[in-house]
């Protein structure tokens, strides 16, 4: 059964590719290239999974995770980062992010969390 996925990433190419790939699997994928717009969408609608880039102009992934999980604590947030050593990783995980995806994304983890 298809799930609802929101992807917040400032790299449009990656957003487009993720949308194509996961829609082919039967899921509904919304994408936002702007961090603030992404947070607002995540707060506005219900998603089974929210993929958030850690480093973006405007709000970073840790801030989005904190604000989103404060308002909607049951949301599943997966962080996308090219730098697993980034100090923001610990902050976002501490805020309740469920997993870390290495950029551009890890298909196994996304499918794993969609199955749960």
């Amino acid at each position, binding site marked *: 059964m298809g799930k609802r996925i929101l992807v917040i990433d400032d790299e449009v190419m*990656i957003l487009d590719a993720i949308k194509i790939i996961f829609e082919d699997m039967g899921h509904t994928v919304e994408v936002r290239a702007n961090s603030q717009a992404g947070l607002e969408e995540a707060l506005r609608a219900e998603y089974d999974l929210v993929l958030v880039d850690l480093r973006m102009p405007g709000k970073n992934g840790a801030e989005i995770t904190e604000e989103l999980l404060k308002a909607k604590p049951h949301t599943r947030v997966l962080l996308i980062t090219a730098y697993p050593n980034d100090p923001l990783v610990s902050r976002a995980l501490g805020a309740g992010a469920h*997993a870390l995806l290495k950029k*551009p994304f890890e*298909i*196994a983890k996304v499918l794993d969390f969609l199955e749960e």
Partner: protein
Amino acid sequence: MPSGKDFQLEDTIRRSMEILQEVEGFDPSSSVSPVGQGTGGEVDGELNALQQEPASGQAHVEVTVSRDLMSATASFMPPGALEPPLDEEDVRRALQAKGVSFGIDRKAILEALRDVNAQLVALSGVIVARGRPPSNETAAFLQVVPELLADPVPTDLSEASVDFKSWSPFRLVRAGQVLARLVPKQEGELGFNVRGEAIPFGQSEVVELKPGPNTGFADDALVALRDGHFELRGDILTVHEVLEVAGDVDYRTGHLDFPGDVVIHGEVKQGFQVKAGGSVFCARVIDATEFSCRGDLVTQQGILGRGSGNVRVGGSVTARFIENCLVEAQGAIRVRTGCLNSVLRSLDRVLTGPKGMLVGGKIYAQEGIQAGQIGSPTSPRTELICGINAFVQQKLLWIRDKNLALATRLKQVQARMAAEPASRVRLQDVHDRLRAAIHKLNESAQELMKELDKNDKAFVLVTGKIYPGAYIEICHVPFAVTETLSGIRFSLDKRKGKIVLDPLF
């Protein structure tokens, strides 16, 4: 509880005392009988009663047959004072009455008769007949000689006494050496119960080992037909050909590509490839470029990769150290002193010695990781990924990369088709094929997810320190180490979806 002898003694005393009490109370001058107004006839009556006492009872033999009809026991009641002794005929009749005809123990019967008649005591539970169980038929089978079955490589690195120099993955055998002995066929034999009824025999199950390559029969034994490495895999006994390299693998040997096992007494020099169909033992350092073997790899020293070397092993890996290398193994990877800036992938566990370190790099171990120290105060990030099949994950990453490329191309084609309607006819086929390729890869990815073999019981255990910068994932659930910890077991709390830390001490 008194033994049989004690019981007989006590019984004898008791009976004697009873008679004595009666006799001692008798006054011959008295006109009154000690048992009342007795008469001669009454005395005779007493005597009769005495003769019919249940303790001595009427002499007889009673036979009981066990429920499984495999034994018969007898109780012997002794003869009274005036009765004739029990004899074999009494027993024969009792046995016959219960249909007992097989396995009669005449010796036990005679002994029982002797005791019961001489001591006038009751005996019970005397086994007087035994059935004979059937012997199963056993086909001839090969039995491996025990010294070839012992594990050649220690599995516990915590033993301080482990001598790396004595490690070898091989059971080396010489031509003519006995590998297994043929245990001959044993014919089945009917059994019989005590009633003389036949009991059919069955077939004993044996593991039927089969002779494999380089083995042959000599008399009643399977022997090695050549020098080599013995292996019992499944039900096949094999002697693998062994290639021995007296010195280094270098310009004198060139690259090695051998179908069997390889013993290298020197080093594997940088730039030289080794490919073995069996296991490899190397006495010194493996300066790995391209190294693969389908069996185990044991090196008494270590493995150097210089950042580009790769080692692929079908079995387990045992080394003193691993540095800057990619090492992939279907079995466990055991590193005694440490692993530096390397990528290890194991479908089993990654283990170090008690003071062994995992510093830098990425360690994937489906069943878990155990180390003396993880990371260092100055080291870069050390990633420890457990609970998943890292090889399946690699395939999924490959699919991801291909799908990204396909999706990016598809997006470009779609943009072109939208901008130039005239190009649609030409691009439609490309468009459809790209979509189909993405779909096919997605289907493969979803199939592969079933093979991730998540093991949520996997754990990371560090007996010494684990430093900030270490990153742990168990079944995709992350934990970033932000402070130095010591003696910790990291495991997955599946219900909470979090990594939990338990102190070891």
